[in-house]
């Protein structure tokens, strides 16, 4: 079920909220969340939901009977952790990467006279990448004793299945949320602040991301070699806006939904396109993924406390894995390698005290330019398409065939307006007061404004959904 589908907005959500607030006591309310989350997930993937429930039960049992048993030696506990991680990583590898690996070894199979294995064509379960990361966080945090274990299987399920963050994050580390599973506050202010955040996310998705996506889809749907250079640039710009407002919109909705029922999720975006370096960009973009990678991958690899060459290598490995996590394709691997290289380069320069002698605005535009180029890899269906598109962007590849779509036809004013508004919002750093109004500081005085804005945004977005239909979120495919 999509957050932006009428059934979710007008049936599922009200029913959930009514049931949740009618239920008394935190345990019952947690059970309500689990029940509705299961329905939510089963609606989209009625088979994989059972795997997730069963997998969580296995994790829960390992945690309960191995990882948190003080009587067991560290070796036994570590073995339990390894088993739990292997199960979760194994499932991720199988469901997400099995087809990719078979495709890569296909020429060898052919030479050996072998057919594709019978299981080829594995269907990608909904939200598996995010679920796998949550489950790894679950077992590692409890192994590391960063927080106390769940009091019941329901609480464990709540962490994994909680529908706002289930499919596309934010990636919440277990130790961040486990206290809130036991104790959290509810109130009108929280409700309104949450609803405001949710409506803002819905507006981002439907009023900016979708119209910009219309242009991006049209451009990426044409043969790259037929695109005039400015079309190629506009297509990438449109996609840059689409993916930011799509994903940050989803995160806003997830954070808002969580807040309505008393959860405080970590922020996932902080105006990433205002970053003045690639390093800063990754501190502002998909923040919870960066944090997860740092805590569960970069630090175990040695973190900053290693030799410089090793540090650079670790950085590069982390981003390579991050790229591969996004999708089983060479484009994503290259995308990760691209960022790994740039971050390593920045780290290298930073350690030597080399800085770019340019105004902040130039650095910001340069960073945005670098990010836009990376989005080509992220959006293209193949490396061949990506290289051809770059070729057309920079005029290196000649326009082999004329485009069939004049500018006025392929760039509708609605989409262009969405891109323009999106650029303004994304590129101009918000003044502190506006930031406070928008997301950070809660104030009862702002409630009325927030409520009115929420209603307007909600109905504007709902109108758009009704008229144009609900489109899936980009990050659902990861």
């Amino acid at each position, binding site marked *: 079920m999509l957050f932006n589908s*009428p059934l979710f*907005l007008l049936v599922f*959500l009200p029913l959930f909220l009514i049931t949740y607030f009618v239920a008394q006591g935190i345990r019952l309310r947690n059970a309500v969340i689990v029940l509705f989350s299961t329905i939510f997930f089963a609606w989209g993937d*009625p088979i994989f939901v059972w795997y997730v429930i069963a997998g969580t039960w296995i994790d829960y049992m390992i945690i309960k009977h191995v990882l948190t048993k003080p009587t067991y030696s560290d070796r036994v506990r570590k073995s339990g952790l390894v088993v739990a991680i292997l199960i979760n990583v194994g499932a991720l590898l199988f469901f997400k990467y099995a087809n990719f690996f078979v495709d890569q070894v296909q020429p060898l199979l052919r030479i050996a006279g072998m057919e594709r294995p019978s299981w080829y064509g594995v269907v990608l379960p909904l939200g598996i990448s995010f679920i796998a990361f949550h489950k790894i966080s679950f077992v590692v945090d409890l192994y590391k004793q960063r927080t106390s274990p769940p009091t019941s299987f329901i609480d464990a399920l709540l962490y994994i299945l909680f529908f706002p963050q289930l499919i596309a994050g934010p990636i919440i580390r277990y130790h961040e949320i486990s206290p809130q599973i036991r104790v959290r506050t509810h109130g009108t202010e929280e*409700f309104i602040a949450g609803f405001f955040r949710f409506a803002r996310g819905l507006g981002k998705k439907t009023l900016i991301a979708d119209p910009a996506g219309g242009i991006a889809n049209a451009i990426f749907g044409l043969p790259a070699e037929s695109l005039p250079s400015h079309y190629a640039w506009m297509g990438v710009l449109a996609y840059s806006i689409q993916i930011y407002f799509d994903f940050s919109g989803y995160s806003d909705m997830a954070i808002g939904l969580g807040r309505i029922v008393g959860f405080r999720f970590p922020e996932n975006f902080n105006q990433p396109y205002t970053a003045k370096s690639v390093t800063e960009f990754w501190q502002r973009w998909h923040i919870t993924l960066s944090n997860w990678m740092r805590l569960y991958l970069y630090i175990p690899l040695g973190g900053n406390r290693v030799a410089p060459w090793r540090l650079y290598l670790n950085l590069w490995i982390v981003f390579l894995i991050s790229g591969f996590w996004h999708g089983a394709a060479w484009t994503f691997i290259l995308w990760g390698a691209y960022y790994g290289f740039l971050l390593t380069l920045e780290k290298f320069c930073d350690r030597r005290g080399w800085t770019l002698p340019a105004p902040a605005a130039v650095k910001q535009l340069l960073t945005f330019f670098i990010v836009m180029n990376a989005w080509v890899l992220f959006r293209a269906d193949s490396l061949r398409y990506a290289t051809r598109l770059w070729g057309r962007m920079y005029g290196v590849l000649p326009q082999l065939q004329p485009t069939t*779509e004049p500018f006025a036809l392929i760039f509708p004013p*609605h989409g262009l307006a969405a891109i323009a508004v999106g650029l303004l919002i994304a590129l101009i750093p918000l003044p502190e007061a506006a930031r406070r109004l928008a997301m950070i500081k809660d104030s009862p005085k702002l409630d009325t404004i927030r409520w009115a804005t929420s209603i307007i945004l909600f109905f*504007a977005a709902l109108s758009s959904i009704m008229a144009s239909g609900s489109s899936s979120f980009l990050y659902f495919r990861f």
Partner: protein
Amino acid sequence: MVASLIAMLVFPMLGIKVRKFILRERAQSIPQPTQLWSGLVKHEWQQFLEQGFLNHMGSLRSFLILSYNEAKHRLFPTRPNDRYIWTRGFGYYPADTISRLNIDVLQHDAVKQHYQRAAHRLRILQELLSHHGIALLVVSAPAKVRLYPEYVAPYLIAPPDTIMSRAISYGDVLEEAGVNVINVQRIFAEKKSGSLPFFTTTSFHWNYWAGCTVADEIMRRAEALTGRPVFTVNCSDVEYGKSRGTDTDVALSLNIFSTDATIGEAPFPKITPQENVRGEIPKIVLMGDSFSDQIVYALTQALPDMSWSPGWLTRYELFQVRQTEGMRGKVAAKTPLQPGGALAEILTKQLLVIEVSDSSVYRVASNLDLMEYGATRALLDGLLAKTGAGPIDPKNFLTDGWRASNEQWRTVGAVASFAIRPRTKGNSIQLAFDLETVPPTPNEARPLNVLLDGKVIGEATISGGREVLNLTVPADLPWQDSLVAEISLGDSSGQPLDLILHGVRVVGADTDKKTNEGIAPQVLPSPQTLDRAGMRTINLFSGEEPEDVLVEGLNGLEGNGKDSLRWALGPATRIKFYVDPTWPEQARQLLLKFAFANGIPGQTVIIRLNGEDIRRFSSEEIGMQKVVDADMVLHTKTGMNVLEIVYHDWNHGRKTYGADPRQLAVAVKRLSLQEANR
């Protein structure tokens, strides 16, 4: 605040409906899944419930959609949605038609080659149908942008004044290939200056007036092609006013509050039935898309009442739905069309019109079989001779360069052709022609060229006189079309062939099963299966007026049950009905059941059939308010019959009997026609 928020979210579940907010949309209903678990896994239940909820939402959904579209329409008037472009000069244009025009310019050669293959098939179909006495006429309907490109210059790949000369045109290619075609784009382009507009500001289709002129052109061509008398369609009486009907289809589909403000003016023809035609008009099958609506409207309005017969105009919508046209445009029930049955029915008609609008013309070569709604492929498949051993019916084999006379097929000109299905496997086709050279060509040996789709592929020699010419068609020829190939015999010196074909057969027993797999079962014309062998009961009190009956001078049904009545209006009630010549003699005797009550002093009623009085009810017999009930047998003639019930007086006739403005004569209590011997 929280409570109000929840109330706001719950409100849509109530499904409140307000008449003011109406959407025009083609929502496809999703059937309820039959199985629980597999329906869930396949997401059928999810789609069904989501669709069900949207339907349940009522006017809130309509209001939201109308609001959004209105806002977009105001903010971005040039692109109110993805489907349409608005221009100040000439209103709305469908965006996809503009894209297709651009493709026809940029991919000119590839698209032309594809059209040529389609034209080749159509010409062969035309030849084969002509052997069965059916004329084929293709109507190529242009999109608005092809006639008025000047208003959408920013959206075009070339300047508007040159784009049409650079774009490949389906109609032009068909014309060049020798297909009977009404190339509407060219005709309209020639008449564009100083003429009424062919499209409205708010229409996807050509307007009713333009459709009327096309209908008139169809009838003119029908006369020339079938040799039968036709009626004309007079489109000269034009009313220029606010667009209506499908002339406003784009405005309606915008789904905005201010629909009315977007609708401009358009010419609308006032078509009246033409003078009766002497002789039987050709029976027509009109295959097409929504551009046919205006043609059908014009034809049915112009058709003289007495020329109507069941099945005079049968419509195949997108080659998927069959519909017969009743009198004055009344529509018979639509039924799904079976392609096999279509050929059988077409073979009982005289004219097959295929209307193809721009949006129905595929540009991709791999979609060749889908051209003309897939009909060309299906009909050729049914008509073409099988490649198994045995004699071949020349009607399903010979194409260009032959003339049938006295049950013989004689060549005309220097080239004579025949159509075969290309072999898909290794076996060659061996054909034995029983030929005879006839004067003035002397009986002596001469070489003939053998051509495949116009290209020389070999030679054959005929010795003169009557002989059997064996021709082997190898399987490895460079077939250009997997469905049909045309092989020709041509005199190498360019002299007339002067041959008579006594017969032709496939020799050898190596039936190519794979080639024959796609062949439709042998279908023979069987009009009896298509039309009833007798009249069905016409009960004018059943609430439904059959499409094959035209009633004038009879008001609508009032009351219900036993007390229901229909007011007959002076001076006469006329019922026109059709008696099929194929019905048996006894089926032509009909029983008229007629009961009425009278409130006018001195009233008389005369029953008249085809101008002949058959019963007179005197004023004494009728009386005042007395119900007169009479059954009478009518001896009808074949074809159209006119039953008249003539009244002596009526309200506002000789006198005014009441304040009712209607010309009330008698109150009819019963009126039906049925077979007398049933």
